[in-house]
């Protein structure tokens, strides 16, 4: 607020002393001074014309306002931190357990697999496949020399 505005407000309120009022009015032009002198009349007219508007059910309105004030002033209920922490830990453990049990793991890692199979003898062929159940593997050699029954193997 500027110095002029401050003095203007005080002049309107009538709180300037006589010397200040005369000095201030000397700075105003004629039109402003005439308009401003109507202000007290305007104030009193407004006060006289304004009348109280009766509210229906004032007690109910008061009780609702008071209730809202109380609600906004009440601190939020304290969350049970320990209880929340336990619940969180339980959820994490349960998720880990379910993941470990139900998530399909890489079957290549938990089963034996044959990457390549090469017989040294070109007349022998080798084929590889997973056994039933998928964990074990079989290398099937065909064309290996038959060992007679009377030959000892140890």
């Amino acid at each position, binding site marked *: 607020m500027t110095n002029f505005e401050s003095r203007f407000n005080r002049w309107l309120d009538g709180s300037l002393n006589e010397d200040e009022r005369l000095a201030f009015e000397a700075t105003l032009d004629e039109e402003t001074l005439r308009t401003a002198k109507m202000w007290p009349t305007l104030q009193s007219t407004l006060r006289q014309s304004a009348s109280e508007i009766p509210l229906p059910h004032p007690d109910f309105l008061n009780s609702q306002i008071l209730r809202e004030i109380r609600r906004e002033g009440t601190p939020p209920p304290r969350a049970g931190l320990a209880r929340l922490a336990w619940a969180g830990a339980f959820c994490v*453990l349960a998720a880990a357990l379910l993941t470990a049990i139900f998530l399909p793991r890489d079957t290549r890692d938990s089963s*034996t697999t044959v*990457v390549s*199979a090469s017989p040294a003898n070109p007349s022998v062929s080798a084929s590889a496949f997973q056994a039933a159940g998928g*964990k074990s593997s079989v*290398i099937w050699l065909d064309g290996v*020399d038959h060992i007679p029954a009377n030959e000892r193997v140890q």
Partner: protein
Amino acid sequence: MKTLIALALMASLSPLAAEDNIWAALVLSTNENPPREVPRKLQDFAPTIRDVFGYNSLYLLGQKKQTISAWSSDWLVPSSDFFFKITSLAQESACYRVRIELFRGKSLLLTTESRLARNAPLYIRGPQWGEGQLILLLEVR
């Protein structure tokens, strides 16, 4: 409760140990009536041998177990006639990548590169012997 959950997680993940064993066996499989009682050490393998190879009786001719670790190479001799040279190429999250050379005496029969997971055997169908079939087993334990 927490202990149970931890145990369940550990059991379900089962990574490789720092040092595992590899077991090899030479097995003669035949068909007999009535079927011969399965040797105790072959009981886990009998169903697969029956289903895949079609034999109901098993004889354990030889076996050998030794340690396996990454980047090692060693001989594995379950019998004096059939034996392996195992070269460990890498240790992956749950299996060993190995090069397996199968010998009969001084003759190389087969070279294979395989991924061997724990408790997941590799069956190699060898030669016929008389009326039976020689099968070689390899398993990381």
